[in-house]
C-alpha cells in the first residue's frame, strides 16, 4: 500500500463568502468546487492550475457541530488557537509580500532568508496562519 498524494486539506473559516474574497480575491487562488450540498456548502480552492490539491473552506456549525461547540471553535479560531495552517509556495516571495501588503492583508512575519528559502507569514481574516515561501530546491 502506498499513499500517493495529499489531495484535500481543510481549514475552518467564519464566513465562506468572506473566505472567497480573501483566498481568491487577495491570495489569487481559484475556486475548485462551490456546491450547496444541502447540509453544508462544499467550498474548495486550489492554487492556479493545480486542481489535484484542494483546500476545503469549512464553516463550523450544525449539524456537524452542535451550536455551543461551533461557537467554541469560532472563538478559538479568532484567537489564533485553532491550528488552521497553510503553507503556500511562490516563485517570488518579496513580490508576493508587496502585493499582499498593498491589499491590506495582515502580516505576521516579514520576508526573511532562511535555510530553506525566503518566506513570510500572514493571517487570513479569521485567524488562520498562512506561510508563503519561495523555497530552495530540496537537496
Amino acid at each position, binding site marked *: 500500500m502506498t499513499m500517493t498524494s495529499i489531495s484535500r486539506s481543510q481549514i475552518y473559516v467564519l464566513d465562506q463568502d468572506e473566505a472567497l474574497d480573501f483566498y481568491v480575491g487577495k491570495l489569487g487562488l481559484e475556486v475548485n468546487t462551490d456546491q450547496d450540498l444541502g447540509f453544508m456548502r462544499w467550498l474548495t480552492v486550489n492554487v492556479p492550475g493545480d486542481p489535484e490539491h484542494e483546500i476545503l473552506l469549512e464553516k463550523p456549525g450544525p449539524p456537524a457541530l452542535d451550536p455551543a461547540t461551533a461557537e467554541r471553535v469560532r472563538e478559538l479560531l479568532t484567537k489564533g488557537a485553532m491550528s488552521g495552517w497553510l*503553507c503556500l509556495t511562490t516563485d517570488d516571495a518579496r513580490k508576493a509580500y508587496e502585493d499582499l501588503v498593498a491589499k491590506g492583508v495582515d502580516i505576521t512575519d516579514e520576508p526573511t532568508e532562511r535555510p530553506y528559502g525566503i518566506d513570510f507569514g500572514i493571517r487570513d481574516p479569521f485567524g488562520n496562519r498562512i506561510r508563503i515561501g519561495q523555497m530552495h530546491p530540496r537537496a
Partner: protein
Amino acid sequence: MSRAVEESNRAMLRARDAMDRAYAEPLDVPALARIAHVSPAHFIRTFRATFGETPHRYLQRRRVERAMYLLVQTDQPVTEICHLVGFGSLGTFSRTFHDIVGESPSAYRRRRTAGVAVPSCFTKAWMRPSPAVTGRNGNAAG
C-alpha cells in the same frame, strides 16, 4: 454575543501579531491598543482575559524567545542580541532572560546546539518559554 467575542479575539490577535512581527521595536501599550481599536486599560484587561497574560509579559517572552533563537543560531555577542530583540539595557535583558529561562544567556548558549530548520512561526510558538514552567514568574503579573 458570540460575534462580539469573535471580533474582540480577532482584534487582540492582531495586536499580538504586531508584537510577534515588531518585537524589536519600542512597542508601548497605547500603540498596541490603537491596533486593537480599544483604550489602553481595556486592552490590557482584554488581552489578559484572551491569552492568559498581560501584553507586557507576552512581549517579554517573545523577545526572550527570539534571543534564545539567536543565541543558538548565530555567533553574535550577547550584548548585540540584547539590542536586536528590543531590550534597552543588558541588565534588564539578562535579568528578564534569567527570570524566564532559568539560566543566563551565555549559559543557555553553551548548552544548546542548532537543530533542524523549521518555519519560524513554529519556533516562535513552541520555543516561547512557558510561564507555567519558569518558577516564580509563573504567577507574576508582568
